[in-house]
């Protein structure tokens, strides 16, 4: 349990550090007035896109004065840190466009946070919200969200303290073995990540059980399909005998020529594993394939989600991939 909580904290801290909102700021309006999104951390790398003032993005990684960022449409690249500010861009009071609203969406707090009466950090506190607690967004005000908490309180919290679309911790149903403890909204954060082990092939992975629920098992017991609470993300994990005795490179080439993984933006191969990642249609995918038993058995972890969920799910995918193993 301690390990689970520490994993959960790692996840939450990781999210807080990498997935909060940032935006392009401080450009010279009399200059070219854009920030170059480059393929690598340096001016020698190719310019992929030109980002205008107030372009929203999220920082994924730091390298010196450079930041690897993801845009809201899922594009990633490197940008010079000086022109990236934390938070959400200021709203232009004279803008003729309506505000983009998160109203009606649900989310989970990324850390302990104070619920406040007003949109100021020195305004009166209504209470303290637990990390991973569920909220419903009722209103929006610049860098603040007006939220209804799982306990029924209403107040303001900073926008960056919430991961929209992420299920709260401690509200998930029965775990996949069918014997897990159920908890309700009042329960403390007791469950963060769960380990799934496929009984037939020993394929195993840790996953955030507050976010993903298992589909019914297939008849052959090869693996499981999991779906996020909001239905947007999906992952599958399974094992199978390497019936055709294929080599690692032959399996990888089969994947690449299958048409399913039509765009590959990341590829890495080890002694007995490979990873493909990119876009399948309008969804992001990450696929890790592992051979064990001298190539007798193939284990697969594959996750897909919409690009808009990258800030929340890229770090989770990394965690899951690291835990992918056989037992």
């Amino acid at each position: 349990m301690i390990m689970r909580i520490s994993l959960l904290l790692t996840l939450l801290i990781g999210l807080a550090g990498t997935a909060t909102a940032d935006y392009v700021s401080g450009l010279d309006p009399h200059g070219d007035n854009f920030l170059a999104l480059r393929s690598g951390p340096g001016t020698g790398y190719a310019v992929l896109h030109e980002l205008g003032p107030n372009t929203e993005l999220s920082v994924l990684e730091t390298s010196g004065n450079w930041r690897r960022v993801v845009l809201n449409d899922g594009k990633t690249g490197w940008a010079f840190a000086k022109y990236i500010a934390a938070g959400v861009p200021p709203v232009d009071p004279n803008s003729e466009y309506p505000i983009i609203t998160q109203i009606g969406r649900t989310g989970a707090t990324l850390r302990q946070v104070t619920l406040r009466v007003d949109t100021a950090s020195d305004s009166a506190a209504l209470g303290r919200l637990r990390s991973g607690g569920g909220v419903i967004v009722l209103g929006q005000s610049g860098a603040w969200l007006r939220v209804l908490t799982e306990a029924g309180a209403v107040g303001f919290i900073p926008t960056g303290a919430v991961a929209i679309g992420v299920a709260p911790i401690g509200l998930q149903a029965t775990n996949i073995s069918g014997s897990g403890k159920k908890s309700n909204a009042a329960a403390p954060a007791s469950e963060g990540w769960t380990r799934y082990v496929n009984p037939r092939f020993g394929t195993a992975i840790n996953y955030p059980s507050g976010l993903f629920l298992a589909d019914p098992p297939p008849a052959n017991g090869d693996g499981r399909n999991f779906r996020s609470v909001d239905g947007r993300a999906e992952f599958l994990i399974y094992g199978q005998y390497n019936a055709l005795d294929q080599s690692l490179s032959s399996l990888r080439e089969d994947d690449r020529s299958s048409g399913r993984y039509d765009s590959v933006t990341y590829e890495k191969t080890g002694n007995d594993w490979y990873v493909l990642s990119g876009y399948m249609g309008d969804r992001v995918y990450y696929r890790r394939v592992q051979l064990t038993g001298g190539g007798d058995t193939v284990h697969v972890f594959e996750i897909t989600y919409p690009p808009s969920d990258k800030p929340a799910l890229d770090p989770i995918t990394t965690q899951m991939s690291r835990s992918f193993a056989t037992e």
Partner: protein
Amino acid sequence: MQDMFAACSLLKALCLMVLFTLPAAANDSTASLDTGELVLIPNADIRLEEEELFISPDEIRVRYVFYNTSSETITTPVAFPLPPVDYSYEANYSADPADAVNFVDFRLWVDGRNTPFQIDARAITRDGRDVTSLLAKYGIPITTFTSDEAGFSGLRNHLETLPRAAMAELRSVGAIHGPDWGEGFYEAWIANVAFYWMQSFPSHTRVVIEHRYRPVPTYTFYGNYDLEAQHLFDEACIDADFEFGARRRMADQPYEMLGATILKYILVTANNWRGSIGRFHLTIDKGSTDAIVSLCRDGIRKTGPTIFEWEGRDFQPNQDLTLLFLAPLPTE
């Protein structure tokens, strides 16, 4: 323009828009507030077994049947947040309510009993300042929707007779904008209104939640030009039958113009908190046998002179509903 006013006087919503809208509207449509489903914090132990959704141009009613699959009572908030009323963008919403806060006349029943709920209503400026209490201090309602012209004039007069310092204060925080002195002001705040309550879901028990409200759709004119331009053809899946019906009705009308109600109901965002719906039943009432309706959903059956129905099992919405109602302009 004379023609426009002649036609406008026939259609209440558009009439209100022209009379009551100070910022010049750049088009002849009212703005919509697209509403959707009740919102629960995701809880895998609470299943949405059934949903019956009734949509007409004047009323939306929804009946949900929830089931708590766990062995414990779950008490959790349920919310119905309205989209932001953004005066600073377009003020021409067609709403003429009795109550400026509950301006959609939201009502709630739980297990058949009329049930009280809380209302959260905040006025927020575009740069993130909460001006709710400031508006209250000067007797300004959170929305300036009102059911009659007298109420509308009363509000304008009230504001314009406020002390100069009060107007200056409202202006300085960005709650209103307009000239420093003299007639006229524009609301610059954004109204966020939400209805919510704490709901208990007893173990292994069904709970029926029903609510109803008046939608705030877009009202506009629809004529031959719109058909030629294929206006809303994609959004509402207009087919040849609908087009034929529209042309036939237009031929009988002054200016060959019909009144259009464009009503959008958001189904997809709710995937955020719920899985698939065990049984989803959609009923559409076009309101009058003179009206026609089009939307993107195959397999809809006509079950009454003005009624259409559709039902799905284990339904996971993958698109929102956009309904286009066309009807002759009222001839009162």
